[in-house]
């Protein structure tokens, strides 16, 4: 629509911006390592279960897998997709609604479709 106000940053502002971007980038790399770590644990648990290692029961692993998946998704959404930043109220609202409905559907399919 109307013209964009072009704002020229001063050298200090530019540097500050870049520093912020850099630190946020470092943050994201850390989150990435966390995600890789969670994935590794998930696969390891399942492999351990398959190998019959004691202490790895279904009822322990399945909730853990779901928890790790949920954490990973949270990291993706909040860090990689920047939902933690300002101006993401609308995305948050609609993603949460989507997740709520999206959770409801598998739940009902698992409970009230019978054989």
């Amino acid at each position, binding site marked *: *629509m109307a013209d964009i106000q072009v704002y020229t940053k001063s050298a200090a502002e530019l540097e500050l911006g870049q520093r912020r971007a850099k630190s946020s980038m470092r943050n994201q790399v850390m989150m990435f390592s966390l995600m*890789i770590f969670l*994935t590794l644990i*998930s696969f390891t648990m399942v492999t351990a279960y*398959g190998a019959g290692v004691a202490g790895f029961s279904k009822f322990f692993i399945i909730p853990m897998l779901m928890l790790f998946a949920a954490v990973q998704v949270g990291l*993706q959404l909040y860090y990689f997709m920047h939902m933690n930043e300002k101006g993401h109220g609308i*995305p948050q609202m*609609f993603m949460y609604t*989507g997740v709520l409905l999206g959770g409801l559907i598998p739940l009902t399919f698992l409970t009230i479709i019978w054989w």
Partner: protein
Amino acid sequence: MDLNKKFTPETWPDHPERATLEAKNKFVGFWLFLGGETVLFATLFATYLALKNKGPSGFGFSTQELYQLPLVFVMTMLLLTSSLTSVYAMYHLKNYNFKKMQLWLGITALLGLAFLMLEVYEFVHYVGEGFTFDNSAFSSAFYTLVGTHGFHVAIGLVWITLLIFRNSKRGLNLYNGTKFYTFSLYWHFIDVVWVFIFTVVYLMGVIG
């Protein structure tokens, strides 16, 4: 105002993806689209869960025997890494470093391509074992869920390839900045879906 106007790092806005009304519209619209996609995949997951291991009488396939974790692990690593590379690309978008952004996007695309090749290999392998789309409800649901994800990856690859080549001469501006940004949102979303696929389909499938 010319949307193809050239910028410098000094004039480049902090949030190029939301700097103009068109960009803001695209940004919000794309997030809404992802909200809808969430429900789409949830429905596919629900269908898969309801039909898991279901087949005609004498059906011989089960999730435990079928799935091969090492392959899935490699695929997961490829896709997760591609998520990080696309974050790097967005970092350079923010810093108005077009060359580096293109480079990282190119790496993202290559990783995505590798993922897709492995998925195709996986499917071909399963079909070779006799686990075809039409042999049971389970196979139909499996191929549809994982295949829909694969289809999204393929669409993403076409998209980013077009973007990279189309803009290679034009450089960054406010017209294409949002396009790159929405692509990265899309790519992360594909990763989100994959997290659930490897957890719910493969890992839980192996556990049974």
